[in-house]
């Protein structure tokens, strides 16, 4: 099974079908009656011709080449790979949710609108913000919507000289990329030796050109920005707005709220904090929350309520416009709301507590053998800098590849950029003590191998279907479609 190595195109055989339509029950006219001749494609598309059994076997075999969260431990830092509850999959597939058209009249979609309204309010409560929009399709898309809101705010105030967004040097790449996409210049603020925003450096950076600061808290190192109040004051005093990147919100549910820290705009990564499936890369969802002074700029529509009636509210005075089609990734939002109802306020708080407990426990077991650049109390994740006392002979890449042999998904590697040979480990709350211990044992064994027999690490992985595919070759002469 694991040796299966075919593309669907290689299974094609003329005449095979995997699909049958009912016979046409209206008059069968030739399409030349409908379209001018030069609109019609006379050459059939070369799509595969396969049978249903082959399709199922093919994709089942492909799934067998994948490692998912249900397969095993997946401590990918900054991605919050927590368990995806199965009830969420069922509720998203309920007929009344999965099979409703976005352009149906409000009277026909009251249940969907009510769910969105309640989710908006729940997320606003968790964030400590005044109003949420569920429209953004992903975290990065939420960032874009949020930064656009900030830009619209400055524009309305006639404050057009504010052309710069500040991001920490430890920020996710999406932060600077987003700000550029929104038409801003980027300035980096450096981190201190203990991994936090350098408050004095920030003080010197802000000015009349500052539109805002984008910050993750806990930050990408997994450390809480304890100076957050001071940071907020510096940015606000300079006339800027403070943006919260919610990538790491899983650490602080019910413990601290971005709104209370002084943030003006927040996005959540629903697929991280609220357990919706990562889906091999998407679809995600990135709701955005704002403080009252920014609600007039939110993208349209949001969901409103008047009496017992829920409605799509397009009446937002200075809206930035639409950022995507329709109203958001509704199917993902159903899953998120299911999760919030299941966990409740007590469960969400417990989740953060155990996520933080897991991270600090792992750290306590690993820091003798792996180099910990900043020895501190961490939140839900921590960053190691390769093996201790290692002359760089064994790289983080080698360690990651060797972990595959032990049956684990490796941590996030080489991020954040400010830590050399970074390994960013985020266990999440859904992993048991036993699982953590198994992973710790694997990392300790690797540390031992590094002292005894480096070659086993250099040639890893040994036990996977493919081994270190050649990325240089792929990028130099790209082959991005199948050629028969």
């Amino acid at each position, binding site marked *: 099974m694991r040796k299966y190595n075919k593309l669907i195109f290689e299974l*094609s055989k003329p005449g095979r*079908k995997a*699909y049958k339509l009912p016979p*046409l029950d*209206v*008059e069968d006219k030739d*399409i030349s009656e409908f379209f001018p001749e030069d*609109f*019609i494609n006379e050459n059939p*598309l070369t799509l*595969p011709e396969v049978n249903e059994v082959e*399709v199922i076997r093919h994709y*089942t075999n492909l*799934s*067998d080449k*994948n*490692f998912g969260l249900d397969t095993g431990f997946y401590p990918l830092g900054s991605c919050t*790979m927590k368990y995806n509850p199965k009830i969420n999959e069922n*509720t998203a597939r*309920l007929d009344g*949710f999965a099979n*409703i*058209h976005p352009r149906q009249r409000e009277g*026909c979609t*009251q249940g*969907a609108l009510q769910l969105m309204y309640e989710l908006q309010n729940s997320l606003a*409560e968790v964030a400590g913000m005044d109003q949420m929009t569920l429209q953004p*399709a992903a975290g990065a898309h939420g960032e874009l919507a949020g930064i656009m809101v900030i830009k619209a705010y400055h524009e309305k105030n006639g404050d057009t000289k504010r052309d710069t967004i500040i991001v920490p040097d430890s920020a996710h*790449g*999406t932060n*600077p990329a987003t700000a*550029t996409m929104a038409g801003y210049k980027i300035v980096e603020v450096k981190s201190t030796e203990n991994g936090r925003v350098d408050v004095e450096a920030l003080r010197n950076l802000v000015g009349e050109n500052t539109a805002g600061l984008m910050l993750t808290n806990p930050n990408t190192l997994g450390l809480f920005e304890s100076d957050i109040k001071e940071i907020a004051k510096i940015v606000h005093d300079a006339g800027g707005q403070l943006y919260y990147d919610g990538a790491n919100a899983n650490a602080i549910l019910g*413990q601290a709220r971005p709104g*209370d820290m002084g943030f003006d705009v927040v996005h959540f990564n629903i697929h991280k904090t609220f357990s919706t499936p*990562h889906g091999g*890369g*998407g*679809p*995600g969802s990135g709701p955005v929350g704002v403080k009252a002074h920014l609600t007039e700029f939110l993208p349209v529509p949001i969901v409103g309520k008047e009496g017992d009636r829920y409605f799509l509210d397009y009446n937002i005075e200075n809206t930035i416009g639409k*950022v*995507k*089609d*329709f109203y958001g990734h509704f*199917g993902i939002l*159903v899953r998120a709301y299911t999760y919030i*109802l299941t966990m409740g*306020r007590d469960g*969400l708080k417990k989740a953060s507590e155990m996520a933080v407990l897991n991270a600090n426990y792992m750290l*306590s077991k690993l820091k003798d053998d792996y180099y910990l650049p900043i020895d501190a109390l961490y939140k839900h994740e921590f960053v190691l800098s390769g093996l201790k006392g290692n002359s760089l002979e064994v790289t983080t890449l080698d360690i990651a590849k060797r972990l595959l042999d032990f049956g684990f*998904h490796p941590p*996030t590697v080489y991020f954040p950029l400010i830590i050399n040979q970074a390994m960013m480990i985020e266990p999440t709350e859904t992993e048991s*003590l036993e699982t953590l211990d198994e992973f710790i044992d694997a990392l300790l064994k690797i540390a031992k191998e590094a002292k005894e027999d480096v070659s086993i690490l250099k040639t890893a*992985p040994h036990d996977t279907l*493919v081994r270190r595919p*050649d*990325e240089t070759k*792929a*990028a130099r002469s790209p082959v991005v*479609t*199948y050629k028969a």
Partner: protein
Amino acid sequence: MFPYIPHTPEDEKIMLDSIGVNSVDDLFADIPKDVAFNKELDLPLAKSELEVTNYLNKLANKNCSTTENVCFLGAGAYDHYIPAIIDHIISRSEFYTSYTPYQPEISQGTLQYIFEYQTLISELTGLPIANASLYDGGTAVAEAALMACDVARKKKILISETVSPQSRQVLKTYAHMQDIEVVEVAMKDGITDMEDLEGKMDDDVATVIVQSPNFFGVVEDLKSSADLVHKSKKASIIASVDPISLGILKRPGDLGVDIVVGEGQSLGMSLSFGGPYLGFLATTEKYLRKLPGRIVGETTDLDGKRSFVLTLTAREQHIRRDKATSNICSNQGLNTLVATVYMVTLGKEGLREVAMQSTKKAHYALEKLEQSGKYKRVFDKPFFKEFAVSSNIDADKIIKDLRSENIIAGHHLGIDYPEFKDSILYAVTEKRTKDEIDKLSSVLEGI
């Protein structure tokens, strides 16, 4: 205890001891007092699976689904049949509980289906390159336009008024942020006014965006538009298309279109109140290194085996940061698998048949609706699976009356086009039967 949190009190004790703290609260000691949230969140307490299911069932049942009602609504999202096989494949948790294939050794499943998806989109559109997908049709239009501006080094976009109003709104939101000018090209009789387009073409134009079938279901003359646009040095043409229509209509790539985008929902995705759907993007080699989003490429591994990796990643935000081609980080992941399985399951014959049946039934429906004399076609132009009819009956009344017969009416065009306040846009897919169409017609006749 919570079902998704495994820790026993004993486990917690062992772990706290190893860390060297006394309590879980100590782990949050770094959150300053004036920031810490010392209350309970104003949310309900945890509920059982049964309670949650009951509650959400109640909400779901308040909606009118397309299984219990007959849907003639389209305007960007369509009620095509979804083969049973799709949900079974995407329910494999090896697919849906994995993330971005950063580690190719244990992600060949995801990487390969994206490679297959890129190939299928490339074949469908007649262009050599496709990315691993974008959020939806509207953002795909915007991303494609920004890419075209970047490559042409110009800051003016023309977009036809016949392009979906949503796509135009999204484009304007994105373009405004980069001080890119968006100019609309007028429509005439339901299609892009070629004279107006010609008049608005100048040396500043980076790209021209058209849609076919356009928002009114009318098939546009892409070849003429492409020829006209290409008279201008450096300008490119973007076409937004319905992928199902490519089962019978000429491929935009073969007609000279530079960038093809579109909404992929028709390719097996449930309507799901507007998302998640799928934006596809295909183009020529020229744009390969400027594409937004992920791309999968073929390569070989240490042992020479065929394998797949994320490639050309130096374009992307995690490496290029503020100089990335886009800020997009995810793709539509699982929905690209949906589209892949849909295209493969229908295959060479099936996609053509779905397109054929949709267009034949739509044409039958229009003929039938016109018979009473009460309803008239708004545009006398070739159309695919959607058409507009007008009448002197109030559109809201029509929609309401159809509703009481369990028919989901078409889209009221007056919402976005005031000049068509008496017109409703009906969509007819292969799912609709003659009986359903006849019933629509007889109910309409009786209003």
